């Protein structure tokens, strides 16, 4: 449980290109709500410039894990670090490198798009002028420039999600967490968001942890972590996980691994 993590201390490696430091590293993390265990000895890492899919059914422990990484819950046992910064010991340094899109919407509906972005920037200590410039740039990138002054309430679900992703990128994080970001969106909006996030990985070298229960969001080049009932059942490159399960695709591999009978949205 408390094995020393083979992670270089940040102070000893001032060079950012030191490849030994993963974007996110989770070591032996367990968590319980009273008597109910939500996570048991979870360990995996996310590399910079990689897309890691965290695959699990509802209740698998994905959201608990996200709450631990973002310091919403205290870590009961194990260790979480972001680019070598321990979330418990130096949360400030860890959180400034992290962008998050939570599953529930967390925008101020009565404020405008720009106001939401400026508020977030202020929370990260980004001055007003810089914040305004970055907001305008990000709104342009998600194609919502002309909506900048409207209330968030008037946006569609897909637009809100895009805004939340833009907001998560405002402080230029190196690691982006997304908790089932496409739930409740139509096909077009889903495709837009997935391709946007994949672009961030390839073009900006951001490490992405994408929690989902939708198999078609995972591609061949991705890293895969299969989480089931709070335990990691398999991890590694997607193709390897599928091959080791003796399956043809992620769907079958997942069912073999978990022994699940029925899948949401897919037949058994």
């Amino acid at each position, binding site marked *: 449980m408390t094995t020393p993590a083979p992670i270089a201390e940040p102070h000893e490696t001032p060079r950012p290109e030191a490849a030994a430091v993963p974007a996110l590293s989770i070591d032996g993390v367990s968590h319980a709500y009273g008597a109910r265990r939500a996570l048991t000895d979870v360990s995996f890492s996310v590399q910079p410039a990689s897309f890691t899919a965290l695959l699990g059914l509802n209740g698998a422990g994905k959201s608990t894990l996200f709450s631990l990484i*973002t310091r919403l819950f205290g870590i009961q046992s194990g260790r979480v670090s972001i680019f070598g910064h321990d979330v418990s010991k130096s949360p400030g340094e860890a959180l400034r490198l992290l962008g998050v899109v939570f599953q529930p919407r967390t925008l101020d509906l009565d404020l405008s798009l720009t106001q939401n972005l400026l508020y977030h920037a202020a929370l990260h200590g980004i001055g007003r002028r810089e914040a305004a410039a970055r907001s305008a740039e990000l709104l342009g990138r998600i194609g919502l420039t002309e909506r900048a002054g409207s209330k968030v309430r008037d946006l569609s679900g897909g637009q809100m999600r895009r805004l939340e992703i833009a907001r998560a990128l405002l402080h230029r994080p190196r690691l982006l967490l997304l908790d089932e970001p496409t739930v409740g969106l139509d096909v077009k909006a889903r495709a837009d968001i997935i391709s946007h996030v994949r672009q961030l990985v390839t073009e900006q070298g951001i490490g992405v942890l994408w929690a989902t229960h939708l198999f078609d969001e995972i591609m061949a080049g991705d890293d895969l972590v299969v989480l089931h009932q709070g335990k990691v059942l398999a991890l590694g490159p997607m193709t390897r996980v599928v091959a080791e399960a003796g399956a043809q695709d992620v769907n079958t591999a997942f069912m073999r691994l978990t022994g699940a009978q029925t899948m949401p949205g897919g037949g058994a």
Partner: protein
Amino acid sequence: MSSITTRDAPRGFSAQEYLTCLTGIVWREGLRFLHQRERFVSALVRPLVWLFIFAAGFRQVLGISIIPPYETYILYEVYIAPGLMAMIQLFNGMQSSLSMVYDREMGNMRTLLVSPLPRGFLLFCKLLAGTAVSLLQVYAFLLIAWFWDITPPPSGYLTVLPALILSGLMLGSLGMLISSGIKQLENFAGVMNFVIFPMFFASSALYPLWRVQEGSPYLYYLCEANPFTHAVELIRFALYGQINWISLAVVAICTIVFMIGAILAYDPSRGLARRGPAGGEG
């Protein structure tokens, strides 16, 4: 670029960043308040009802002798004005913490809590923001009250400001302390009734304490022990350019105790964790 070195070397946060964060939180709280017109109106109507109706009716019943800080006989309306100012802040403090419970349930609180700045500082900013909103309400009340012949010396409007900031912080942190013990929104109303009304009535807001002492010595001691009494007295004296040192000490100490308590007790997982055992999102 220097941004490359920031990735690995811990650099802490500059005073400028703290200030940006503080102003951002206050700004957002102000915007939200302006969007909630009903909240502003009800925050104003409540004390005005007391002033226009209750005080007018009680004017004949209660005679007020000359007590400090007043130098002449005063109308009952003039007497209760500071109590009503404190009442505005009491309600606002409870309402701010209510909205924190709401934010926590709705997920908005996460936006605040994933800020890299220290959590204690973020909560302190929230308290200051709530206090700033209460100042808007109090000064709006004072403006209307001025037409009702509640005319403290002009300098009083300035000297009362530090008193209002301190009492606003005290009542805000009390609200946050209480809200940290509340698991869900529905429980809030009941708790508020147990806090707001006893605090307001067992205080010097509506009647001078010497009057209370004549009626019931026990109630008098209760009123004296009530921090709200001291918030009222602090405001009352400050409005006339004076300092009530005992009240200042009580309010300052209570502010510190409540604030430390609120920051220590504030657990963001409460309300979120509730969903865990319920079998929802794990």
